[in-house]
């Protein structure tokens, strides 16, 4: 506000003075006394300025100001001479004195201008000084020419002088941050302009021999002093209330101080630049980074930090490290470590810690060091954060993978793209008794021989087979030359650019397995053979037994036929037993034959409609059904895949049993089926005598009879045959029964869809 008021004040004074001067120059009616007073006033101002500079020179030993002071003193002396000289007598002299004044004023203005551009002098000293010298030279030459011209030709050349100062005025002040320098420059331009006007008027007055113009020139000269005075005051008031440093900078500082200030400015500028430079580095660096003060308050951080911790500058800057976010950094050990970095200048190098961020645990690596601060007492700390979670994970994965490979039971071999071994795992070493050094660089196919060796070689050696994965059985060789059987996979391994890097071979030692398999196969064959033999035996036995039995039976019957009642009573009885025994034997043998035929004489399975089967069965059992007055309910039955003949036998046996083992009531039999677990489950229920639970397991055993022969004749083969038939069809048969309440037989047969699938 003060500066603003002063500005208005000074501009006001300046305007009034200018208007007044112009009025005098254009209109001569202003009283002569006032003009004189005005002249003396300007003289006083000049005196003031020169004394001001003189004091400055004495106090601050400023060479610039001393020069200025000298010039102004000369101006004052000339001014005094000018005013004391009667104008009628010393017109020429007056004019000369005024010219000298103006020349000196130019010189001082030139020096001021150059001086105000010290920074330029510093950055481009040669150009600046040569410019200054040139300017001074031109001024001096012009002066001499003018003096000569004035003396001999009565012609004034000096109006061209101010023009020489113009280039200086337009030297741009590039590096100076001080607005005052700019201001001074334009102020002095104004000063030169006015001087130029004064000079012009003097020139005109000498040409036209007009004293009025000389007076006007005098006023302009006076104004130029006022202008410079105004400039000085203006600057002075501008800098009022600013630091002494700045004030000094403009007017009061000695050259040394000024130089120092400028050096500092220069340094500050450099610092500023390096600060910008480092800030842009900090900002653009990928790693999250923190700059902390001695209290661990965050001074600076970068974008990566905000991103990683999901924070914004408001939540971060000027806050304590342990308070930001959700207290992720509130780790006493870490904080005390950081404090010791600041206080004791120790470094934290790759300090690994985990931090919980957005529900994820991150592993970070911290590096911290103190930033050396020369002038500021508090130390700063720079903390870089390396998010190594992914790296850690990758490392962990790699470690796991390596451990897995190392501890795998399968032999694992890695080769390069030529099939030369790069790595083998301990399992392979254990298997073969080789050491790794013996194997390294060896070709894999020298260790494995294979039935299809050419293909295998091709796989390893040719690049065209890149996508092939070889699997199969092979024979490997141990160190001692003995062979072992493996099931092996050889797969190509690619690098991240899909280039073939090598091969991985995984071998399963199947020597034992193969042996076991062979054993098993052999046993299975043996079992099949012995089963077949057994069945054959049962068949042959029953068949061949039939032959002699037929003889026994036939001749016993013949005996009975021809000789019954021809011997005694005992003989009759003996013949009866023999005949009966032979008959029973025949039944047993034919049943056994039937039983053995289920396995040996079965037909291939075919689509079989169970409704057809049941109809055949009912036809076969027609007589006994009629005799027993049995009712048989049949729900619609499915089509299955079976041996039709055997299925007839199955249903016939079970339904036959249901009729046979009836009690006093007439039999009621129901046949039904339902889908269960991809199979058909059949049920045949009756209301017969039933089976006690303890016998329920026995009924499917061959020749197992529960009831006596007198009431329920039979050999006990029926259900055993049923079971065998069901087993041949990969089904199950079971019974649920309560004595006296009948029984229910269940069995399963394959469903059609199940077979198709």
């Amino acid at each position, binding site marked *: 506000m003060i500066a603003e008021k002063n500005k208005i004040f000074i501009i006001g004074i300046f305007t009034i003075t200018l208007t007044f001067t112009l009025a005098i120059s254009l209109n001569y009616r202003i009283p002569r006394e006032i003009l004189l007073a005005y002249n003396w006033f300007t003289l006083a101002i000049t005196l003031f300025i020169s004394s001001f500079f003189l004091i400055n020179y004495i106090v601050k030993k400023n060479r610039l100001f001393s020069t200025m002071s000298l010039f102004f003193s000369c101006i004052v002396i000339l001014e005094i001479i000018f005013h004391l000289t009667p104008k009628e007598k010393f017109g020429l002299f007056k004019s000369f004195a005024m010219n000298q004044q103006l020349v000196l004023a130019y010189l001082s203005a030139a020096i001021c201008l150059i001086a105000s551009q010290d920074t330029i002098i510093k950055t481009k000293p040669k150009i600046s000084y040569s410019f200054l010298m040139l300017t001074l030279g031109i001024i001096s030459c012009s002066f001499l020419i003018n003096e000569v011209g004035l003396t001999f030709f009565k012609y004034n050349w000096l109006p061209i002088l101010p023009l020489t100062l113009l280039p200086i005025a337009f030297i741009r002040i590039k590096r100076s941050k001080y607005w005052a320098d700019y201001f001074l420059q334009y102020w002095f331009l104004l000063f030169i302009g006015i001087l130029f006007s004064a000079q012009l008027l003097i020139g005109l007055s000498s040409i036209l021999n007009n004293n009025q113009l000389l007076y006007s020139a005098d006023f302009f000269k006076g104004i130029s002093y006022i202008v410079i005075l105004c400039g000085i005051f203006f600057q002075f008031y501008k800098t009022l209330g600013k630091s002494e440093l700045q004030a000094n900078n403009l007017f009061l500082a000695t050259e040394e101080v000024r130089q120092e200030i400028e050096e500092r400015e220069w340094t500050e500028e450099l610092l500023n630049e390096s600060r910008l430079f480092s800030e842009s580095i900090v900002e653009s660096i990928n790693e999250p980074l923190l700059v902390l003060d001695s209290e661990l308050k965050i001074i600076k951080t970068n974008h990566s930090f905000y991103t990683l911790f999901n924070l914004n500058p408001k939540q971060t800057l000027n806050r304590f490290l342990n308070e930001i976010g959700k207290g992720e950094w509130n780790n006493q050990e870490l904080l005390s470590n950081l404090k010791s970095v600041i206080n004791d200048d120790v470094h934290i190098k790759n300090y690994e810690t985990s931090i919980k961020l957005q529900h994820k645990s991150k592993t970070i690596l911290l590096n911290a060091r103190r930033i050396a601060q020369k002038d500021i007492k508090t130390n700063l700390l720079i903390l870089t954060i390396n998010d190594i979670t992914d790296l850690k994970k990758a490392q962990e994965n790699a470690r796991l993978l390596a451990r897995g490979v190392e501890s795998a039971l399968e032999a694992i071999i890695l080769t390069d793209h030529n099939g030369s071994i790069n790595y083998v795992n301990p399992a392979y070493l254990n298997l073969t008794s080789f050491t790794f050094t013996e194997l390294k660089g060896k070709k894999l196919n020298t260790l494995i021989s294979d039935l299809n060796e050419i293909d295998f070689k091709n796989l390893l050696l040719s690049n065209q087979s890149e996508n092939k994965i070889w699997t199969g059985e092979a024979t490997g060789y141990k160190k001692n030359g003995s062979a072992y059987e493996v099931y092996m996979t050889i797969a190509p391994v690619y690098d991240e650019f899909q280039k073939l890097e090598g091969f991985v071979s995984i071998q399963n030692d199947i020597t034992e397995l193969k042996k076991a398999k062979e054993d098993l196969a052999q046993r299975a064959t043996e079992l099949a053979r012995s089963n077949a033999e057994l069945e054959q035996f049962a068949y042959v036995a029953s*068949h061949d037994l039939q032959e002699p039995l*037929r*003889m026994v039976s036939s*001749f016993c019957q013949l005996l009975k036929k021809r000789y019954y009642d021809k011997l005694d009573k005992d003989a009759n009885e003996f013949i009866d037993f023999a005949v009966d025994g032979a008959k029973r034997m025949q039944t047993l043998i*034919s049943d056994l034959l039937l039983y053995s035929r289920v396995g040996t004489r079965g037909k291939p399975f075919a689509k079989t409609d169970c409704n057809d089967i049941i109809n055949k069965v009912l036809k076969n059992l027609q007589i006994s059904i009629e005799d027993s007055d049995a009712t048989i309910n049949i729900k619609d039955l499915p089509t299955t895949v079976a041996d039709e003949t055997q299925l007839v036998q199955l249903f016939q046996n079970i339904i036959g049993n249901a009729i046979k083992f009836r009690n006093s009531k007439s039999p009621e039999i129901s046949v039904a089926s339902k889908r269960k677990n991809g199979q058909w489950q059949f049920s045949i229920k009756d209301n017969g005598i039933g089976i006690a639970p303890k016998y329920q397991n026995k009924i499917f055993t061959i020749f197992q009879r529960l009831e006596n022969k007198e009431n329920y004749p039979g050999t006990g083969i029926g259900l055993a045959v049923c079971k065998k038939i069901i087993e041949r069809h990969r089904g199950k048969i079971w019974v649920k029964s309560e004595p006296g309440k009948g029984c229910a037989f269940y069995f399963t047969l394959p469903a059609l869809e199940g077979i198709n699938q």
Partner: protein
Amino acid sequence: MSVDSFERPIEILMAEDNPGDIRLTREALKDGKVSNSLNVVNNGSDALAYLRKQPPFENMSRPDLILLDLNLPKINGIEVLQEIKTDETLKLIPVVILTTSKSEQDITSSYQNHANCYITKPVDLDQFMSAINAIDNFWLSIVRLPTE
């Protein structure tokens, strides 16, 4: 009743190694209505020798009916059958396969080799008797065979 039956007994050749069956057949034929003469050989080669009148069967006459068991020593029944049925002079003689086998394979191969009929020996005596009598009756009385 055939007219021939009055002129000479029917000649039957039985190739059978089981004496029991021979006896039973003999017993059965004894009750037969047709007078017959049963000649028995115990193996396949004898059967062929008999038919070809080779020693010691030079004096035997050509049979009118052959009862052939399949399970014969030396040359089995099927082979004998093949020999008979490929022999232009012998193939006209009806051959009845009389065996204990119920095997489908035996039945099929018998008929493929032109057996005239296939009978499984019934286990029961009465049935056996009636089977033999039925053969006797059918082939020797009912059927007309070409004369030599």
